[in-house]
């Protein structure tokens, strides 16, 4: 039997005002893009907690995609800016943990950019496919219970 081809599994956090609406538009416009991402709609990219990103990696995701509004367009004024800075710092830490920083991708997608959503998602999946499966054995974790009871 041939070696099964590696298909990256992606978790995509999409803000409901821009990237999520853009993804919907891509769908209703019947644009084709790879089906590797599991979309999770959040109210704002600023709502994406880094623990969720790490949880995705812990659960076996090969890449995490965060879609937010273009600079200046955040429905909550500055959520996307905070996310951008968070992701920047997180990427540095991921590198030290043996997870390629490229596995976290932040993109600005507006509600009218269905085509852009399909394009950037396609590109991300392609890059993750080229990067191959994760090489780190384990993952930065959160939530180890500090005191075990009983």
């Amino acid at each position, binding site marked *: 039997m041939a070696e099964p081809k590696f298909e990256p599994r992606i978790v995509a956090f999409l803000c409901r005002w821009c990237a999520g609406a853009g993804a919907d538009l891509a769908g209703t416009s019947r644009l084709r893009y790879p089906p590797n991402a599991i979309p999770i709609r959040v109210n704002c990219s600023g709502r994406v907690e880094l623990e969720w990103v790490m949880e995705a990696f812990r659960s076996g995701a090969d890449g995490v995609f965060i879609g937010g509004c273009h600079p200046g367009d955040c429905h909550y004024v500055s959520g996307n*800016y905070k996310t951008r800075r968070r992701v920047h710092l997180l990427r540095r830490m991921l590198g030290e943990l*043996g997870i390629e920083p490229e596995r976290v991708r932040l993109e600005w997608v507006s509600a009218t950019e269905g085509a852009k959503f399909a394009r950037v998602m396609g590109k991300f999946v392609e890059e993750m496919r080229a990067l191959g499966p994760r090489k780190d054995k384990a993952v930065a*974790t*959160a939530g180890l219970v500090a*005191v075990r009871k*009983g």
Partner: protein
Amino acid sequence: MAGKPRIAVYWTGGCGGCDVSFLELGTPLLDVLAKIEIAFWPALVDAKRTDLESLPPRSLAASLINGTLRTDENVEMARLLREKSQLVIAFGACAHLGGVPGLANLSSREEFLRRTYGNGFHPAPPPGGRAEDSPPDLLPRAKPLSEEVSVDCVLPGCPPPPELIGLVFDAFLSGDPPPAGHVFAHEKALCEECPRTREDRRLAKLVRPHELLPDPEECLLDQGMVCMGPVTRGGCGAACPKGAMPCTGCLGPTPNAGDPGLAMVSALASLVRVGEEGEAAFAAEDQVLDSLVDPLGTFYKYSLPSYVRTGKRSDG
């Protein structure tokens, strides 16, 4: 059992600072010592492992164990003390979360042995098996106490502040043991008890402690120091910020903060701002964030083994 409660104090992979920290109690320590009997405390009394082994199970009222678990002998001793004790108290940041020695988990055991002892070092048993007096084997990674034995309560800190040590003895001697899993520190963040004032909530640059003599009144974070106060438990009276040093997180994260590293990234990311927020400032903001030296070592200084499973750190 009549008589004074018997206790054990033991160190695993620690520095000895926790043992010394008892002295910080000052004269109240004499009252405490009058009310207990020390059955086993390698730093203080001459009792051997065989003495401990000869005790009946649960005959010790409490064992206070400090240090990270780093060798197989550490684990054996922790299990032995668990068997002989009614209460096991994780004493200090190492036993609580892994501590500073836990930062070694960023390298593999082989890598840091090579780095310390050179290329000639082979962590192999001597010819013919294990010599009677060969050193204990290093575990593949450092672990907090709770990964090997059940821990009844935690006294955090590096070392634990005297006022919290006092609380442990009060609870213990009152005959009313603390609830299971209790951590002898506040649930609220250190900032709540820090006397410094927060005003200008934006960070245009990061400074390391040796680069700045901070204003005595103003919040250290506001002055650009990476202070872990927002994500760290209070209970020490903000001793470090009062002394013009940023909190490094030794009491461990608050229950709300969860993973201290990720929580601190979020806190810093919210505060770092250069000029008007927006696309034009992105490069400058990244420069500020990049000026942070060693994010993992800063954010997980005392807690790496508890929150970061394995790491692969490239040199440089």
